[in-house]
């Protein structure tokens, strides 16, 4: 262990550095891609291809007055954006980026991920509640309901993968996909997990806690400056996390033909799903909050259970 220690810190540092920069870059990527799909230019003035918009954006956020509304519940108000940031970053601890690059090779990695993402719901509820604003409150209520219900079958959808791999360890799950990526036997599980993942990161079409045209900015209406920035960056890291999980669980993680190193395969696959996230935002309207819940409980949950049952049956029968 002692020999591994420097390497260990290097990995943590490297992942943090990469993630935060990626989240910032995603702002630019998303805006450029949206612009491309929406027949407009997007940011193109600051630096080459408008790349420096990222720097400008972060500078703006840093130098904004760190304002807390007088009617807000101060400690909670400050805590809420930190929670989303911390829980999402913590989840990355268990993700195997390549056979060598993983922070902690937990044997219950998957459960750790689920636990962390559930904690994320607190940031929405507390943020909305502490703002003491009716729009925020409505957003928080919606957010809480949405995250709790989608959590249920997010977990259940993953069980199919666990059954097939016979492990909660993400590294083992990737290894188990050497023959066949799990998205083929677990196609239903994949779709459900992806939908739940969108709901979990509350991106369009499931951006109901924010719902700009209805609730102004939903649960973070009162936030500005870097606290808003935390929610903002937290969202991008969140979609990166879901993309990483999708890739790890269903698309063979770092696995790929040998001409590229494993980490490159992983990054390529993750980018593919990041693009899907952005494309979804460009193309879908937003369902109503009760429709979303109905869809979750009445359609997705039975499907998930069925998926789990069939998978379990097949595993028993084939003695996988």
């Amino acid at each position, binding site marked *: 262990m002692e020999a591994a220690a420097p390497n260990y810190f290097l990995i943590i540092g490297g992942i943090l550095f990469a993630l935060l920069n990626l989240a910032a870059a995603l702002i630019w990527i998303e805006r450029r891609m949206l612009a491309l799909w929406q027949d407009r230019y997007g940011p193109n003035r600051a630096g080459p291809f408008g790349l420096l918009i990222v720097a400008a954006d972060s500078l703006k956020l840093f130098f904004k007055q760190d304002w807390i509304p007088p009617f807000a519940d101060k400690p909670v108000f400050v805590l809420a954006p930190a929670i989303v940031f911390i829980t999402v970053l913590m989840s990355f601890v268990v993700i195997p980026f390549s056979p060598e690059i993983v922070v902690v090779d937990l044997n219950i990695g998957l459960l750790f991920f689920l636990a962390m993402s559930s904690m994320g719901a607190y940031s929405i509820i507390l943020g909305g509640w502490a703002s003491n604003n009716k729009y925020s409150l409505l957003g928080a209520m919606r957010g809480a309901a949405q995250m709790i219900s989608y959590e249920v079958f997010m977990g259940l959808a993953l069980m199919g993968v666990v059954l097939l791999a016979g492990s909660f360890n993400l590294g083992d799950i990737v290894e188990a996909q050497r023959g066949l990526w799990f998205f083929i036997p677990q196609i239903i599980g994949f779709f459900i997990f992806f939908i739940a993942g969108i709901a979990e990161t509350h991106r*369009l079409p499931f951006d109901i806690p924010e719902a700009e045209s209805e609730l102004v900015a939903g649960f973070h209406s009162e936030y500005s400056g870097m606290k808003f920035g935390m929610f903002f960056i937290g969202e991008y890291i969140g979609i990166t996390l879901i993309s990483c999980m999708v890739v790890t669980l269903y698309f063979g993680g770092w696995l790929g033909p040998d001409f590229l190193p494993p980490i490159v395969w992983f990054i390529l696959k993750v980018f593919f799903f990041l693009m899907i996230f952005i494309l979804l935002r460009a193309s879908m309207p937003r369902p109503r909050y009760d429709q979303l819940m109905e869809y979750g409980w009445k359609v997705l949950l039975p499907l998930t259970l069925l998926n789990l049952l069939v998978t379990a049956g097949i595993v028993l029968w084939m003695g996988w």
Partner: protein
Amino acid sequence: MENISGIVEQLQARFGESTFKPQTTKDEILTLWMPLEKIKEVLSYLKKEAAFPLLFDLTAIDERTRKRDNGHTPYAFTIIYHLLSFERNAFIRLKVGLKEDFPTVPSISSLWANANWYEREVYDMFGIRFEGHPHLSRILMPRTWVGHPLRKEHPARATEMGPFQLYDDKIDLEQSALQFKPEEWGLARQSQDTDFMFLNIGPQHPGTHGVLRIILQLDGEDIVDAIPDIGFHHRGAEKMGERQSWHTYIPYTDRVDYLGGVMNNLAYLLAVEKLAGIQVPDRVKVIRVMLCELFRIASHLVWYGTFAQDVGQLSPVFYMFSDREKVFEIVEAICGGRMHPNWFRIGGVAQDLPIGWEKLIQNFLDYFPKRLKEYDSLVLKNTLFKARTVGIGIFTKEEAIEWGVTGPNLRACGYDWDFRKKQPYSGYDMFDFEIPTAVNGDCYDRALVRVAEMRQSLRIIEQCLKNMPEGSYKADHPLTTPPLKKNTLQDIETLITHFLGVSWGPVIPPGEAMSCIEATKGANGYYLTSDGNTSPYRVRIRTPSFPHMQMLPYITRGYTVADLLSILGAMDYVLADIDR
């Protein structure tokens, strides 16, 4: 007119020979003066037994400074009711003269649901009280406003008012008026089992498309009641008419329904031309129709995109605005202006069509249908879009008529009433087009109707392109303003008329006339009264968005906040069109 001939006899038989005094007007709408005491009986008879189901407009005129006698003006104020009969395809105008300075009139808000806001507006603007009105308070002006703006003694300009000063007690008064007390809006704070939450949607809110405030009484996310608070966009368009010349008022009309552009000019000018007795050449008619239909497309495109955005779809609005840009390129080439071209003139249009206009139109005709088809699959066929709009905000044809709903919103209930077909103006009878209707009267159907209307507008534009008549772009009439410039260099008479028309403005002969056009959002009418002066004596603008917004509480109760946005989006209103 023939459809309505029997109605006077019917009324006289019912209420007595001497009850009604007819008046002849320039627009040939049957106009009857009736006594104050009989308002309710007569109107209720007309509504229930004589098939005049729609209260088209209710307004008043301050008669006290009127110069010419119209045979009925010992009165200080006149209240005017405009009713529309679909069956007879005719309007009727009923007038009641009032002698006091601050008169009281029986309210008809129990008779027509949409009379409520109209009476509040008359109270706000004239200080006329309506007895029996459930909530007679200011509607367009701030609650702390002193005076009633459309009374003739109320100053029209800030310079007539004396310097503005904001004393401390006035600040306190204004501040306390801003405080929200649910009781003042007739809202209960709690029911037997819940405490309600009050939510202000607006005046600054991304979903209201302008400065509109909606007070929501919520039980969770369910709407118990919704009260629109309007007037933030009030600019006194009607008062301004009284100090602008007939000619210089045209640009103000552009800004009433600011998405409708020249279509507002048309509504105003049709009334002016009726007063002046101008017959415009066919070329003018067709040019006007072509531009109006272009603006209908432009307006519907804005609605289409923002509606999709209201239900959370981010992209369509960009596509539709770039298509609207294509419309504006044509408009710009023809008029020079874009959103507010101010391009129609009394008796014609400002200029002839530019060389090469056919190509511009043809390009657009080739380009746009494909895009519309694309939008169908992008928006209308999208299941999430359907989930948000089908079965939301339903009203029936009868309810629509009761609330004064016109235009696409009425046609979405399955009633094919379109003024372009039923009472053709500006030569619409020469065109071949259909009136799209839908069945259910929900938000989705309103969308379907508007999309189908864009296709019909394209048809009309194509016919304009193919059959543009030759001839002058201005009528040969002394009141055409400004007259053809080239004639002014030929003879002194035209030069003088030109000079007077441009400096004083034309003198429109005394009389009154109302126009009614099928504007982008519904029936838009200008009711103009002239006392033979260089400016109108009274300009009344009947806009479609005003009654539509009034209906909002009625159709939103029981839905959720998210549905409210669908309903608002599908309603297609413009704040300037509501507040004027």
